[in-house]
């Protein structure tokens, strides 16, 4: 029989029988079994990182450019599957930074700040404590390192597949941000170097919704303007942006029947196809291209534009006095598709040749035709 190496033993679940005398180890085993199970779940079904909160914020101290750096409360999962909880806001210690980094800092350099979980014996509560610890504080530790040491994050090795959570003796470094330092004080938050702050993720081959609609978005909350991708039995695949009321303004839709609708100019125009946009524009505006037309292809001549503008005749005379007749002086577009529309108003109820030129609006149609493959410029 082979002896398993640490972390490779099969999980063991305690069971009890009637009238069993339970030792501390029996009860501890029950707790450890559940804790190990949770850690394996967090480690294998999630990517480790910050799960909530744990942002760094700064507040000027009023002393030159010195700032106070505060870690906001939050929760992270480390690479061993250990849950690391920071229950309240914490002010970062300048003394600790000076001790651990000290002269190794350079002005303006971004120094990584790490969080790691650490089991601690609780502080003695009364004189009745007999020295036998019956609790463990699932605490944490903050560490500062020199600029460039953020690479340590990428060099960490996950424990064996069956192992439980780490106890902090071999700390798993969770990067929560960067700080800058000068003359014995924090001076601000540093910029992320080659290693960004890492957030917790999900590992799954199947993600399924129960409501009939599955949403994937780039932010925790559905903020207005935020991008979202939804899959639903009824509407199919929709990419769009959130509106103020929480609904989605669709930019790309694939219905369950396979019909594709695309807004915007990113969709490729098939060779030989014609695309059209029309509307009304006032003087000075640049006419839009039809959806799917690549501006670079218009510039290169592989997509040809046909632009028609028609001046609006319901303009406004220069004055309420008299009778004025409009006549078009100019109505067209320049090379940049900018509308030029000018109306000359002539007063006809007097002998004096009174006139004025005013800007106007025009209806437009832009037709884009893509050259057939092989026939383009």
């Amino acid at each position, binding site marked *: 029989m082979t002896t398993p190496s640490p972390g490779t033993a099969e999980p063991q679940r305690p069971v009890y029988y009637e009238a069993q005398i339970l030792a501390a180890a029996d009860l501890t085993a029950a707790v450890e079994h559940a804790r190990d199970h949770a850690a394996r779940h967090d480690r294998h079904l999630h990517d480790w990182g910050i799960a909530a909160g744990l942002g760094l914020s700064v507040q000027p101290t009023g002393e030159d450019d010195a700032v106070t750096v505060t870690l906001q409360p939050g929760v992270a999962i480390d690479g061993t599957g250990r849950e690391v909880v920071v229950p309240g806001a914490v002010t970062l210690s300048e003394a600790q930074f000076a001790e651990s980094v000290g002269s190794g800092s350079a002005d303006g350099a971004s120094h990584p700040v790490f969080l790691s979980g650490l089991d601690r014996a609780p502080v003695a509560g009364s004189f009745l404590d007999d020295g036998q610890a019956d609790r463990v504080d699932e605490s944490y530790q903050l560490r500062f390192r020199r600029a460039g040491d953020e690479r340590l994050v990428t060099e960490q090795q996950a424990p064996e597949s069956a192992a439980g959570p780490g106890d902090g003796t071999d700390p798993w470094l969770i990067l929560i941000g960067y700080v800058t330092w000068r003359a014995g004080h924090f001076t601000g938050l540093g910029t992320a170097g080659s290693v960004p702050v890492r957030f917790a993720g999900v590992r799954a081959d199947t993600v399924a919704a129960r409501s009939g609609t599955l949403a994937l978005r780039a932010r925790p909350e559905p903020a207005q303007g935020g991008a979202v991708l939804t899959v639903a039995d009824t509407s199919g695949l929709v990419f769009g*942006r959130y509106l103020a009321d929480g609904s989605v*303004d669709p930019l790309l839709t694939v219905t369950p029947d396979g019909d594709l609708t695309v*807004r915007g100019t990113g969709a490729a125009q098939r060779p030989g196809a014609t695309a059209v*946009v*029309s*509307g*009304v*524009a*006032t*003087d*000075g*505006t*640049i*006419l*839009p291209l039809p959806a799917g037309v690549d501006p670079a292809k218009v510039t290169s001549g592989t997509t040809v534009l046909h632009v028609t503008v028609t001046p*609006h005749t*319901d*303009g*406004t*005379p*220069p*004055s*309420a006095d008299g009778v004025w007749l409009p006549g078009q002086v100019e109505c067209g577009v320049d090379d*940049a598709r*900018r509308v030029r529309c*000018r109306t000359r108003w002539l007063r006809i109820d007097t002998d*004096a*040749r*009174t*006139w*004025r*030129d*005013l*800007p*106007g*609006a025009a209806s437009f149609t832009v037709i884009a035709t893509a050259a057939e493959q092989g026939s383009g410029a």
Partner: protein
Amino acid sequence: MRPLVVYAGHTAHVLAVLARTGPEQLAPDSAEPLVGDALTLWAGGSDEAPGDPVPLPVPAGDLVPAVVEEQPGLLTVPLAFGVQVIGGEAGPDLRLLQPGDPDGGPLIPPAGNVTVTLAADRVVVTLPAPTTVALPVLLVVGGERTRPAVRDQIDQGASVKEFRMNLEPGTYGVLALVASWRGVIHRGVLS
């Protein structure tokens, strides 16, 4: 379809409108796709000051795009409308700038609006009456040479704002935008 407008960020005046057929359009992040580097308005010729139009470029950096509710007269006289900016965001409803004309609507230029006068050493923008609150002003002067757009304000209790500048003899155009008042394009000749 709701129109897309470009408005002056300093005074909220609508300066250009694009209404496209088809699905609802979203406002781009900046005005540049709609106007390029600058939106060039112009002061047209007249029998009193004939000649070519005087360009009045408003830099794209002074402009903001927004999708708004359709409004009668918007395409005809954009300068008669202002965007309502609340908390830094443009609301969808436009407002008709004063002096409103209860009979003719927004189309016919009403009496009692902001006036512009030119002198060799200044451009003067005058309100019909002293203002009860400070009003932002955007001024663009074009002509013999085009000057950069100027941002300033008419102070509380004042009705006049003088912009000092040396103007040589010639034909000039002035775009004067005073917040809450209909925008004015003035063309004049200095001899």
